[in-house]
């Protein structure tokens, strides 16, 4: 039996490197981890600040004022029906615009456009996506409202839900188009080829094969678009007006959750007198946050379904 020659054996220890070098590595690791964990801190801060003020708000007001009497925060009337109706009408109109336009653009870019045409047409969607929402608000108020809405219905108000809805729709369309296009492009070529092999035409292949194969990604695109439309602020704040009365009429002004928040913020100094008016901001913010979070989680589920399959 030979004695173990200790000095020449390569142990795990001798491979782990200088302690100083390892310490530095560990510190860097922790720093990066801290940066990543910061996102959790931020989310927690968002939820905490929203929840705390929202509960203070609910404790301070008469709860029956949440469901009657219109939306007049300075007069302590916080009728949620008004702002939820406004949000629903605007989001509905926006999706009527962004759904067909976005999906149409996505299908054309993914299935019909050859690479050269795509290079020319894709930037249209990209430039549209880069336009700030205030600019679309300006456009909705000063062009869509007089040139489209008031031509459709001469008795329409200058500030109206329809113009704001169309503006939000144009804003959301690029998002719908790009998410849906990703879904369509991730459908394997083999499915299309199989369909052509059976003698199907381009249109039947697109509608009966590619579209169903990508349907969960397309649903995700629409839900994501809806979530963005609900949270859109500046177009609504400029073009929808600020009526506090309950109204379903798209030709009349209305109030949305985001619009109500912007109005409260602009009114800044006058609001300071009433504590619950400021706190209502957080309550509405919390409702908005939960709605968009739910929609985003649902759409994430749908996207994952596409990824799993291919």
């Amino acid at each position, binding site marked *: 039996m030979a004695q173990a020659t200790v000095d020449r054996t390569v142990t795990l220890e001798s491979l782990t490197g200088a302690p100083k070098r390892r310490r530095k590595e560990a510190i860097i690791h922790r720093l*990066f981890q801290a940066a*990543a964990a910061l996102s959790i801190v931020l989310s927690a801060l*968002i939820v905490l600040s929203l929840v705390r003020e929202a509960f203070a708000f609910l404790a301070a007001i008469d709860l029956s004022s949440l469901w009657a009497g219109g939306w007049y925060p300075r007069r302590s009337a916080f009728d949620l029906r008004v702002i939820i109706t406004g949000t629903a009408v605007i989001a509905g109109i926006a999706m009527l615009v962004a759904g067909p*336009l976005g999906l149409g653009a996505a299908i054309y870019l993914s299935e019909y456009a050859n690479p050269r045409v795509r290079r020319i047409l894709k930037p249209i969607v990209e430039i549209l996506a*880069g336009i700030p929402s*205030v600019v679309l608000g300006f*456009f909705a108020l000063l062009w869509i409202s007089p040139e489209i809405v008031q031509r459709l219905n001469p008795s329409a108000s200058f500030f109206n839900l329809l113009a704001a809805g169309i503006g939000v729709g144009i804003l959301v369309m690029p998002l719908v188009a790009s998410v849906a296009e990703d879904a369509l492009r991730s459908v394997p070529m083999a499915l299309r080829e199989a369909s052509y092999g059976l003698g199907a035409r381009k249109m039947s292949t697109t509608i009966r094969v590619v579209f169903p194969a990508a349907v969960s990604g397309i649903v995700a695109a629409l839900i994501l678009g809806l979530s963005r439309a609900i949270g859109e602020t500046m177009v609504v704040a400029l073009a929808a007006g600020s009526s506090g009365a309950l109204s379903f009429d798209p030709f009349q002004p209305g109030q949305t959750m985001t619009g109500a928040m912007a109005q409260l913020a*602009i009114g800044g100094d006058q609001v300071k007198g009433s504590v619950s008016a400021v706190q209502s901001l957080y309550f509405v913010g919390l409702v908005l946050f939960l709605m968009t979070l739910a929609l985003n989680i649902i759409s994430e589920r749908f996207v994952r379904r596409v990824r799993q399959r291919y």
Partner: protein
Amino acid sequence: MVVRAEKLPTSDIVAAHLSGKRADIKGILFQTALLMSLMLALLFLIVLLTEVLISALPVFQERGLQSFLEGSLSGFPDRAGVSQALYGSGMLMLFVVLFAFPLGVAAAIYLEEYAVDTRFNRFITVNIRNLAGVPSVVFGLLGLAIFVGALRSLTGGSSLIAGGLTLAVLVLPIVIITSSEALRAVPQSIREAGYGVGATKWEVIRSHVLPSAAPGIFTGTILAVSRAIGEAAPILLVGAVTGLLGQAQGGFLDQMQGRFTAMPIVIFEWTKEANTEFKALASAGIVVLMAIILLTNAAAIFLRNKYERKW
């Protein structure tokens, strides 16, 4: 084997279909309809841009670009300009770059290079993705509660610091996501080569991974900044000034803790004014803002096309 020459009734139909000269009218209509949706988007874009340019023209013709850029917020449309808004937007972007860029890239490095598949790390990823979907107004509420409220002694209330930090938090998830994608695109073999010559993890990242991913990371950051520059809602909630703003005074810190305004806020304010002269000012402001955004986006695309490597 004998090939049957007998003609089946179906073969006529098949032959007709295979050689069909019939125009596929439905197909053409479908394709046209799809193209129309893109053309409608293009039409909106063109109308928007021409409308803005036409309505901005009087401002640039009568006063000149310089007078508009140098003027400050004013109740008199013929003297009002965007100097304070440009300064405010510039400073806000400085904060975004100073905070969101290092933190975002560090978080992306952790998620792509260090994180193993634990529940905690998965939670971070899901959380970042959800954070990216939170409406921008809600970030404004966060800024109002934390940066304006809780940290008032540090930020000085509704100040440039508070607004800048709010926007930095807003774009942080976007920076993390785009940087992660850029890091993921670096092939594993590059890392293995580094480990093979005895480099530690950080050495591999610093000397191999980051240089390869840099174009993607910079492009993503520039795009995030150009998104932040157009955001009005969050800084409106934080308390950007929509009316008149005094000349900034005091030292650098005092200015940073002072009240502020920004390009999208000024445009918002002028659009709301009933007066047509202010509408013209709003259009002129939009022209300036869009020029800045298009230039930054063009820079990002140029950077991507010039330096991006395909592995």
